[in-house]
């Protein structure tokens, strides 16, 4: 939106090579990977029982505040992910650095809530394809069966002993939120793990 803003530098710049790799079967690649550099991520902390806070979140994001553990709410603009009691991540398409945070700050000015833009501290790796759960199951110690971990559910867990937030966007589409400094290690592990299914790396925005 604002062309004067610097583009976010990929956390995977040294390892990111779009293309098709691994053992591609008759159905094509079993895994598709793309780094989502286009997302704005804001951490919010507030009192879930405070009506004014929940209302402000609903107004700014279009999403009802998810108060049930490990769930996400989605609107046409935003996703709100439950992190912990009274902690959430608000994810939106990149409107320009800090814009969402500023809008929030104004609507929450009278209440008590904390906002932190963590867009540049995290990177989001989108993993999709028919074999996505098999790939994640190689490194995540949680139950990834679709009946247990379906769309609009999220979970803080470990992947390759790295702390991540997993969000199931659609049955076979996951977003993995990972701290920037660990992103390349995780990426190398993901691509190595995906080789047996055949994988495609798409160009990032």
């Amino acid at each position, binding site marked *: 939106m604002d062309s004067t803003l610097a583009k976010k530098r990929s956390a995977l710049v040294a390892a990111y090579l779009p293309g098709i790799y691994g053992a591609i079967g008759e159905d094509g690649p079993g895994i598709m990977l793309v780094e989502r550099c286009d997302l704005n991520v804001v951490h919010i902390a507030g009192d879930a029982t405070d009506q004014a806070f929940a209302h402000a979140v609903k107004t700014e994001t279009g999403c009802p505040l998810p108060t049930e*553990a*490990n769930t996400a709410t989605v609107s046409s603009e935003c996703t709100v992910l439950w*992190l*912990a*009691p009274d*902690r959430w991540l608000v994810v939106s398409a990149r409107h320009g650095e800090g814009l969402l945070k500023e809008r929030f700050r104004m609507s929450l000015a009278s209440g008590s809530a904390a906002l932190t833009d963590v867009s540049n501290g995290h990177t989001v790796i989108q993993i999709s394809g028919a074999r996505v759960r098999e790939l994640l199951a190689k490194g995540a*110690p*949680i139950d990834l069966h679709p009946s247990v971990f379906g769309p609009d559910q999220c*979970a*803080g*867990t*470990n992947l390759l*002993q790295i*702390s991540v937030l997993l969000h199931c966007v659609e049955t076979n589409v996951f977003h993995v939120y990972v701290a920037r400094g660990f992103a390349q290690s995780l990426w190398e592990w993901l691509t190595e793990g995906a080789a047996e299914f055949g994988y495609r790396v798409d160009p990032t925005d």
Partner: protein
Amino acid sequence: MLLINCPWCGERTQSEFAYVGDANVVRPDPDTVSDQEWINYIYIRSNPKGVHDELWQHIAGCRCFVKVRRDTVSHEIIGTAAPAGKIDGREA
């Protein structure tokens, strides 16, 4: 590997948690505490054989502290709760 029931996230593996220690330790009032009481608070722990209440932190998940009642002999987990919560079942 233990399965620990986080009161918020549900059953998760031990590798997502960090062990914190004895859940029964109470911080003494620093204005009135004697040196010996402070030493006891900081360093001295019982090492029970059997049922023990301990704190774990769900470090890879919600980062909340969880009180766990565990049998140190069999590793059976009798129950879990929020740190201020009450655990039903076998007492220490």
